[in-house]
């Protein structure tokens, strides 16, 4: 209670601060941040990054969020509110990467700069820019690390895939397929998982990206093959659930778990040997750079550039592990904890 009260007070103070300083910066830039939900720590961090940067640059910021992951209607409403509010730019993490596009077009036609954060729109150029983790690269890093760790045993590995959901959203596919490429599995069609025929794959199951789903999915796949020794997980909560399932049958030493996210809880789990390696992404940075880009656009008319060779602006990803593998760049747990979110 103490910490949450303090956090609440700090939050109120920040809000009050914004209200007081706002009139002073009358000529200023105004921006909107629209996230998928207000409850997932990842988006909470994103909001924090945007608010801190907006305060530092004197940008007026309003934040909106869907009620649940996939709440497209709330995001449409939010964009319309921002247009009515004559905002200069919108940062959005789209819940439905296709359905939101017509509304985004309207906003752009009205002269707003629209930057997608974390998740690309479909098509990707429906937004003026995208600031995101290279999810394929994030998957590839843990795949390469796992291959290096197993060495010769990689040829006979028994691999479980703990994915996100049956609808296979882009983030789910990119991470999963990236891992396969990194590990040396032919991913077949790179736009979907489940079509591969590599004999090392025990199976795919879905987790919903949460602990309970991770545990159940791991139990199911262990039933298919108790010899599983490598577990790919879509995110760190799923990894924590998978570990519980392995521990319950005494197989936690047999299997190495790899994951993606870089939350503080996840990095601590790397430190404690529960997760072998994780790819860290930087939501705070995405939001902060997004706010900067909107300010630059208003002042100079310049739109953000894509990273070289990519169709979006890569905010970076780092592998975190306590067992570095030659040829796979990684950072220490200590550094990971310094840059973690949530």
């Amino acid at each position: 209670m103490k910490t949450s009260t303090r956090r609440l007070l700090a939050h109120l103070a920040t809000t009050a601060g914004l209200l007081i300083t706002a009139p002073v910066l009358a000529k200023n830039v105004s921006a909107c941040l629209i996230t998928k939900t207000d409850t997932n720590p990842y988006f909470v961090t994103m909001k924090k990054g945007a608010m801190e940067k907006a305060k530092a640059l004197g940008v007026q910021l309003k934040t909106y969020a869907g009620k649940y992951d996939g709440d497209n209607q709330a995001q449409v409403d939010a964009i319309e509110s921002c247009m009515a509010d004559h905002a200069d730019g919108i940062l959005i993490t789209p819940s439905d990467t296709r359905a939101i596009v017509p509304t985004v077009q309207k906003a752009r036609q009205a002269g707003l700069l629209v930057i997608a954060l974390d998740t690309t729109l479909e098509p990707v150029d429906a937004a003026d820019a995208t600031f995101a983790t290279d999810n394929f690269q994030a998957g590839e890093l843990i795949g390469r690390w796992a291959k290096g760790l197993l060495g010769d045993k990689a040829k006979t590995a028994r691999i479980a895939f703990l994915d996100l959901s049956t609808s296979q959203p882009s983030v789910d596919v990119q991470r999963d397929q990236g891992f396969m490429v990194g590990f040396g599995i032919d991913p077949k069609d790179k736009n979907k998982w489940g079509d591969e025929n590599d004999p090392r794959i025990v199976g795919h199951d879905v987790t919903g990206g949460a602990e309970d789903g991770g545990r159940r999915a791991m139990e199911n796949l262990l039933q298919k093959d108790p010899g599983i020794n490598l577990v790919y997980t879509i995110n760190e909560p799923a990894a924590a659930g998978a570990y519980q399932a392995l521990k319950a049958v005494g197989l936690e030493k047999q299997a190495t778990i790899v994951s993606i996210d870089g939350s503080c809880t996840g990095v601590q789990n790397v430190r404690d040997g529960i997760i072998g390696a994780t790819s860290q992404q930087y939501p705070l940075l995405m939001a902060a750079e997004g706010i900067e880009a909107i300010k630059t656009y208003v002042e100079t008319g310049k739109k953000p550039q894509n990273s070289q060779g990519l169709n979006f602006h890569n905010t970076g990803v780092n592998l975190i592990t306590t067992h570095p593998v030659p040829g796979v760049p990684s950072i220490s747990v200590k550094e990971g904890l310094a840059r973690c979110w949530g």
Partner: protein
Amino acid sequence: MSHSLDMKSMHDSVDTGAPAFEERSITPLERVQHFLHRNPAAIPLIVLALAVLGFGLGIGPRFYSAFTLTLILQQVAITGIVGAGQTLVILTAGIDLSVGAIMVLASVVMGQCAMHYGLPGPLAVLAGLAVGGLCGLVNGLLVAKWRLPPFIATLGTWSIFGAIVFIYSGNETVRSQDIDQVAPILHFFGGSFRIGGAVFTYGVVLMVLVIGVLWYALNYTAWGRHVYAVGNDQDAALLAGIRVDRVLVSVYVVTGLICALAGWTLIGRIGAISPQAGQLENINAITAVVIGGTSLFGGRGSILGTLFGALIVGVFSLGLRLLGTDPQWTQLAVGALIILAVGVDQWIRKISA
């Protein structure tokens, strides 16, 4: 059991106004209908047996192993416990959409009390149970005293309890190792024991206990018969001298407490305390109750049916995974089972029409 059947047939006779079916000449089909009408747990039990048999034939010894079968029990334990509470509410012709949120709130309260306020483990558990009961009391008062339709009342409290989970926990996950250090009692229901190849968690034992106690209470106590009576016809129950509002409030409070127990079990199962966990547990619980043959219109059904309903979903989920099908097929099968279950319920109801 025969005692309980007698009570049920007495109960049915009040409801249908046709006290002695046996004396009329009836077709075999009607006989089946009557049997099913009196034994709401029979159909789910038959479906469960067929499912186990079918998947066993399709998959072989890997499915029939004691380990696999007890794993299914472990996987359905939380849904079974929450479903037991949900059954009580649905028997009163209500529905509780907030059960999953109460469960997670209770687990978060237990975690915060142990980790942040430094309370000893057992006290943290008690605090969680108290909060669960309190949530149930709120639901009960809204339904019984404020006369809100249960769907609306619990739709509201679902949102409220869910929001409190996130605000109160600050979206923070408490890690498994930290719980082990500070309050290992929170992991109690994750512990397990073996009998041969079978592995039972204490969570499974809790599920069986909760269902056993409720089965006894519903069939052999005045309170239990009142629950059925209120669900069948509230006005008639009132005229018969039953204090309907007290029965309703007690049902929601008991359900809240059971959800809090499920929250404790959840901590054992997933190790961590996560505000994101259990988001769909209200739907899972309603699914188990409905497939278990309890009528959404109240007054008819059984707690054992809920256990079988939860197990049917568990058997289909694991069985289909072992057959190597994509997870979508499980979702499809569960949907078909729900429709089938309600269809059968309607068919059985025809005899009392």
